[in-house]
């Protein structure tokens, strides 16, 4: 469903991605792990073109989206993104946050969008917060709204950029549960995380990145259980 070929990204002289070739199949859950500065977040942000790749190609559903002629807005509405810092719109209620995309981008009637928003809020377990403002919610609740907001566009794939890194420990579980349920429903997902237990539990495949390249990838049992590459071994010995 998503395929990158020789993906490179640099900020000035700083080479962050040095040629990434990864393919994500439909309904697959790929978890990207690696030390800070390994380029995993940049990789994720390149997938929906929030960062413009310096070189290489990205294919999404067979279409080369790095082609300058491609309408990036059409691509982005198909890929939901969840950020580390939630990025909810503070001047809008929870319901308005969720219905904005569908009503403005997909021209869904407001009533229908609100109905769908309620279904999604129910799904992430905070139906009662429909009319609250983001500042009135806990971090875990805000992130669940952010997930509902992304799902409201009925995306074909979801990208999670360290979705639990900004949360208090007691709230991490509630967000991971929601992501886990999505995986169970067959959503195609790319997840950047530091939660190794979670990676093992929901990931169909683990991709270990370091210094802008994919060092090792494979099923969670192999990569996390018996890593072959010394760099993977060194990283895991620190975080497990």
């Amino acid at each position: 469903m998503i395929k990158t070929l020789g993906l490179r990204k640099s900020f000035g002289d700083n080479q962050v991605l040095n040629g990434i070739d990864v393919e994500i199949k439909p309904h697959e859950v790929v978890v990207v792990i690696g030390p800070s500065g390994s380029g995993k977040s940049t990789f994720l942000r390149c997938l929906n073109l929030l960062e413009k790749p310096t070189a290489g190609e990205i294919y999404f559903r067979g279409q080369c989206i790095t082609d300058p002629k491609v309408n990036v807005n059409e691509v982005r509405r198909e890929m939901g993104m969840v950020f580390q810092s939630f990025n909810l719109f503070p001047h809008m209620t929870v319901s308005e946050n969720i219905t904005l995309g569908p009503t403005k981008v997909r021209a869904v009637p407001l009533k229908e969008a609100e109905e769908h928003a309620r279904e999604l809020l129910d799904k992430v377990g905070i139906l009662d917060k429909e009319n609250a403002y983001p500042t009135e919610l806990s971090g875990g609740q805000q992130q669940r709204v952010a997930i509902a907001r992304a799902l409201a566009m009925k995306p074909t794939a979801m990208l999670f950029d360290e979705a639990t890194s900004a949360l208090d420990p007691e709230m991490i579980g509630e967000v991971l549960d929601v992501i886990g349920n999505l995986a169970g429903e067959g959503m195609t997902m790319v997840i950047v995380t530091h939660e190794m237990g979670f990676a093992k539990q929901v990931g169909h495949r683990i991709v270990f990145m370091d210094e802008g390249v994919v060092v090792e990838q494979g099923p969670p049992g192999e990569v996390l259980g018996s890593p072959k590459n010394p760099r993977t071994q060194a990283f895991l010995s620190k975080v497990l």
Partner: protein
Amino acid sequence: MILDFSIIPGILPALLWGTKLTIELALIGVAIGLIIGSVVGIGRVSSNKLVRTITGIYVDFIRGTPLLVQLFLVYFGLPSLIGRPVPAFTAAIAAMGINSGAYVAEIVRAGIQSVDKGQMEAARSVGLTAGQAMRYIIFPQAFRRIIPPLGNEFIALLKETSLVSVIALEDLLRKGQVVITRTFRPFEVYMAVALIYLVMTFGISRLVAWSEKRLKVVD
């Protein structure tokens, strides 16, 4: 020297006529400033380098030169260029509007840039175009932060309208000068003039403080 404030009631009508012109100048000036400033302020954060450069030159030129010089440029300078005189009132509102536009532009630019980058990213990631993201996400948040400094800009502009007295427009200050030639009471008259300015600026600053409280940014 004995102060004689008993002359005040007699001169007040004249001063209030001047005040009317002062308020007119400030309101029209700030209205023009708002229009220019909104456009230029958005231009300052444009992705187009040429637009950024041109708007940047405008802002730097206006903010880096005295309003009095700008007023002279329009009132005395422009006629020689276009071959006919510029009416004093037109020159005054043009100079004030163009001047205020540069300051408003900086306020607008700062307001837009004060909105967290993640807001734009989140808006774009649900598929909104850059224009839609600006309209629904960035501007509404920037607007709340822009209101208080805009109020301060209006206060500054109101005070600066006193400069137009030098091109013979009968604003509050000029009316005061005229009255003095009749009464020979400069201290009392200038005190009255100053107090009228103070009443206006104080009123606006209270209004700004009130709006600041009401529009307190939620984040």
